[in-house]
């Protein structure tokens, strides 16, 4: 479909000058990421397990990355391991907890709004039990408590905040229910680490560096001391839980350094971005007819908002926004490789077509958001006019 309304000279696709509003997928690298990565490339290329001088330098950098990451997460350095992605870390967490309790059973309890990587891990491990959410996307705690209390539960998994709706989950309460039942809990904190305090009560927790402005290709897993965890992978002779093979020390250093920098700015940035999300929530509801702004308006991530427009093809809206220079994502089925609507929107029982997720970061300004809000109603109206509505 051609968008003939693009004025001459306007960006024709979301190129380098585009307004990037998909932080929930990946945040553009923080300046500290770039600095740390370049500095660590000089000293961190050698294998950390060898005994010569260059290897010792790389080892010192890796140890420093563990210490810094541990401090940022409020855990011990030897509880931290780095993985090739947030998804790999989440799967290692869930499967590692469950594998250690094979004698108890193979049942894995998880919310209906986990990341697909966790759903696939749970389904492969054995008997996966899904616990629903309400329409704002918040976990059904009584159902969760009942599910983790049944016999044969090896482990449970809960996302700290929905990556699609932004709704913050009652992790402390869910963790208490797990503790009462003696079930270890994995928390996928990919969307909240760097923005919200690390919740209490879990056995293992994972995060993803690119979600806070660190480098892509770095996941973080932390398993508390005393928790039984067995690697779901064959592993190698390296001395602590981690992904198999040699990893990028510079990337790990950059991940740790950027998280520290992001946390130092988090209070100010959260207030700023949360006010912009409030602006989007109210303006979209006011200026776009037949729209459903989804997720909890209060107990939510500071940077993420999702809405669905009746009668609108999500893919067409994404392309129209892209031509105007706005990069956003969608949970609509037409934008998914599976051609199924987002399982998160399905679980919430909200409209899944015409869906747009806008997620903000430190590079997004109020004028950027106001420009987005100015073009959106016209683009939605154009798409609706094409189908006679």
């Amino acid at each position, binding site marked *: 479909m051609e968008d003939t309304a693009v004025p001459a000279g306007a960006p024709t696709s979301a190129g380098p000058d585009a307004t990037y509003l998909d932080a929930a997928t990946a945040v553009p690298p923080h300046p500290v990421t770039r600095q740390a990565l370049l500095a660590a490339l000089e000293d961190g290329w050698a294998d950390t397990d060898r005994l010569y001088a260059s290897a010792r330098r790389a080892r010192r950098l890796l140890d420093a990355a563990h210490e810094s990451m541990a401090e940022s997460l409020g855990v011990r350095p030897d509880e931290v391991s780095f993985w090739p992605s947030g998804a790999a870390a989440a799967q290692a967490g869930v499967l590692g907890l469950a594998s250690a309790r094979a004698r108890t059973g193979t049942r894995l309890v998880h919310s209906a709004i986990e990341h697909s990587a966790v759903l696939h891990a749970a389904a492969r491990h054995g008997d996966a039990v899904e616990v629903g959410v309400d329409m704002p996307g918040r976990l059904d705690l009584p159902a969760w408590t009942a599910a983790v209390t049944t016999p044969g539960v090896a482990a449970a998994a809960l996302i700290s905040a929905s990556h699609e709706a932004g709704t913050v989950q009652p992790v402390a309460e869910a963790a208490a229910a797990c503790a009462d039942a003696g079930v270890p809990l994995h928390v996928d904190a990919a969307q909240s680490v760097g923005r919200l305090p690390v919740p209490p009560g879990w056995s293992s927790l994972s995060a993803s560096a690119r979600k806070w402005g660190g480098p892509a290709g770095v996941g973080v897993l932390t398993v508390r001391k005393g928790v039984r965890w067995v690697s779901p992978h064959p592993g190698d002779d390296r001395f602590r839980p981690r992904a198999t093979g040699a990893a990028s020390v510079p990337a790990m250093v950059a991940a740790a350094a950027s998280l520290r920098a992001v946390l130092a700015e988090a209070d100010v940035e959260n207030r700023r971005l949360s006010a912009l999300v409030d602006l989007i929530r109210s303006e979209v509801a006011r200026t776009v007819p037949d729209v459903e702004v989804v997720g909890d308006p209060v107990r939510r991530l500071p940077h993420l908002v999702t809405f669905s427009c*009746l009668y609108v*093809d999500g893919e067409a809206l994404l392309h129209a926004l892209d031509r105007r220079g706005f990069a956003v994502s969608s949970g609509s089925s037409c934008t998914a490789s599976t051609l*199924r609507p987002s399982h998160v929107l399905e679980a919430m029982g909200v409209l899944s077509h015409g869906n747009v997720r806008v997620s903000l970061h430190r590079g997004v300004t109020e004028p950027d958001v106001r420009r987005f809000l100015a073009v959106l109603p016209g683009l939605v109206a154009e798409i609706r006019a094409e189908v006679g509505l």
Partner: protein
Amino acid sequence: MTTLDCRGQRCPLPVIALAKAIRDTPVGGIVRVLADDPAAAGDIPAWCRMKGHEFVGRSGVTFEVRRSGGTT
């Protein structure tokens, strides 16, 4: 009763067809939609909720909606 055969159509097409058909349906009347797109299972009830119509129920690929006082 109006029956819309939207099998093979992807969302939002079944919901668009439903929205158009409800205009010609008297209050209390039923529109039946046949839709096999997985998204219809959530989107037809969501449309009813947003527009103030009654979602009667679903059986397989058959969805039934009753026009209420809601908007068209």
